[in-house]
């Protein structure tokens, strides 16, 4: 399958292991990625807070570039925050022709235009894996089942709320996909309170206490529920849960945090036979060694 691929800013910035692991995983899934290397930041909710017309124009520009990729099935992103911010703009762009024309006129200088088309989609890798590739196909390609691993799914916010904007009417199980995928890869999904709560990242600069209390609480809940690691489809969640984890500890009065947090393509890549190093698992703040060791200790797959 060929897709227009929007990696976002953070996967090429502070979480380069995400961008790298996606590149390594794509051939395993027969995914051809046409990277939108001229597309701009989605605004992450912040430009929307600043000026709606501006953010809608910026994302219409990205959509127009994606729609221009020949034979692409659709557009794929690997960041929940991009998904949420772009879906918000798409909802407005699709709502009325008058509004869409106005936004498109801001792009006319470059001959770009976003067309409303019921068939065209922009999906996070998680949605693409379940809805386009299919869990059966994923299951067939597993060469290293993640048996014995207890994985806590961390969905975050942008990919599960608001359900009306995010297509839950057509895909009501989108808030279960991580659990389903974890099972399909042979691991055990862990139930804990924080799975669909906020990681705290959006307020790290404005209110560090609120932010790190959120991150710390979810990490502690996952540990208490017996998880070996977390997995998230959002690099911003990853920053607060992994990069900030040593600080988050203090805000929840715990001294036993230290749980690895995987990016979605890293988890899938491990099961599909990629090596931890190819997946950049050495580039985490909280060491992923325990996960790798537990996998190595498990009986080898046929």
């Amino acid at each position, binding site marked *: 399958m060929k897709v227009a691929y929007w990696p976002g*800013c*953070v996967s*090429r*910035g*502070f*979480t*380069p*292991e995400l961008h790298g692991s996606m590149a390594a995983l794509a051939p395993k899934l027969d995914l051809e990625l046409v990277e939108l*290397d*001229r*597309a*701009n*930041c989605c*605004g*992450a*909710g*912040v*430009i929307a*807070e*600043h*000026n*709606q*017309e*501006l953010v809608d*124009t*910026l994302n219409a*520009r990205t959509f127009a570039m994606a729609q221009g990729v020949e034979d692409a099935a659709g557009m794929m992103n690997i960041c929940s925050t991009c998904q*949420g911010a772009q879906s918000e703009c798409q909802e*407005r762009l699709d*709502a*009325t*022709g008058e*509004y869409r024309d*106005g936004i498109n006129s*801001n792009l006319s*200088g*470059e001959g770009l235009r976003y067309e409303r088309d019921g068939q065209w989609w922009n999906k996070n890798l998680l949605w693409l894996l379940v809805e386009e590739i299919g869990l059966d196909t994923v299951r067939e390609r597993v060469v290293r089942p993640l048996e014995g691993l207890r994985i806590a799914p961390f969905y975050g*916010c*942008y990919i599960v*709320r608001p359900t009306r904007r995010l297509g839950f009417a057509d895909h009501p199980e989108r808030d279960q996909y991580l659990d389903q995928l974890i099972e399909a890869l042979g691991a055990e999904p862990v139930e804990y309170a924080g799975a669909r*709560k*906020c990681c*705290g990242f*959006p*307020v790290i*600069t*404005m*209110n560090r*206490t*609120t*932010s790190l*209390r*959120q991150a710390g*609480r979810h990490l502690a809940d996952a540990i208490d529920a017996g998880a070996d690691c977390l997995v998230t489809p959002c690099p911003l969640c990853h920053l607060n849960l992994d*990069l*900030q984890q*040593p600080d988050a500890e203090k805000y929840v009065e715990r001294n036993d945090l230290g749980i690895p947090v995987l990016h979605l393509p890293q988890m899938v890549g491990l099961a599909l036979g990629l090596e931890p190093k190819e997946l950049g698992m*050495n*580039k985490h*703040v909280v060491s992923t060694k325990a996960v790798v060791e537990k996998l190595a200790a498990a009986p080898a797959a046929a």
Partner: protein
Amino acid sequence: MADYTLKIRRFNPESGEAAYWEDFGVDLPPERSVLDGILQAKDREDASIGIRCSCRAAICGSCGVKINGKSRLACNTKIGDAASQAASKNSGAVVVEPMGNMPVLKDLIVDMDAVHWKKVQRVVPWLLPEGPPPDREYVVPAEAMIDVTQSMACIHCGACVSACLSLEVDPGFIGPAALAKAYRFVGDPRDGATEERLRDLAEDPHGIYDCTHCFACIEVCPKDVAPMSQIMRLRRRATADYEIKDRNNGYGHEQAFTSLVEKYGTLFEAQLLPRSLGDGSLVKGQLSPSGAKQLIPTLPTAARGLKSGKVSPRKALTHPKLPDQKQVRRIFKEIESKDERLELNLYIVGEEGAEEEGMAEGGLEA
């Protein structure tokens, strides 16, 4: 008629015992409400079940509870729908609990006074007109009142307060319902204290910049008030219209983020924090006493980023511009130089081709 099981969270402070779960069997047609179910259990099995309710028609906002973990009105949740949602878990029982983030008074009744109403009072929820009143009524442009209708639709059920993920970790947060109410007055042209209101809410460490943008309030609101969207409008007014440089770095963060994207096309992450601490300026963020004071505690984070190999020194200091960065700059310039900010509110406009129902009608013709 069908049989359902309600699993109700019980708590009676006078008993001295801890809260516990109790199952009740009810029989009702699936289209009847969870509230009808609770009232049937109360009527037939245990008259002491505590539930607050009045209109039974999603108007009064009294019967806010959590159903299968989600905050909502018991009277506009069909028991059949709730049971099918619960089918995979809890062996099919519909789980009913008191709302979150507020103390429980008894069973399903929470103390709205202690939390919700206190926070509403905090935002001065009445008009503060400027100057002497006019001889006759105030004349207000229709567009201005349409703009605040969404925040006026709130019925104070507390569902958003219950679901708020910031409140969960910071009980001091003013919260979604009260901040939506604040916009109702900030957006009202008759009010004479717009700037003071915005300054107050921007400077409060538990104000508009304490919202984590999690969409929980938008998801649960039974009246589509979209409190988080109202909070974002308050931020927009505070930064763009009044340039309120708040102590929480809200203004700085927005300025830093937008100016970095304007300059580079994608986000130059390494400069986001220092610029945020300096109202958007890199120099001010690093050299001003308040910027430096806030920057120092984040140095271990930066060190961890370098050590793990996530961030190279080069990446910390430089950032490539997009190949077509001129386009992005032109878009910024053109749109930001417009006299008026264009905002499309789907609550008012509705979706093209969608059936007009209740709240979503009208608006665009104006």
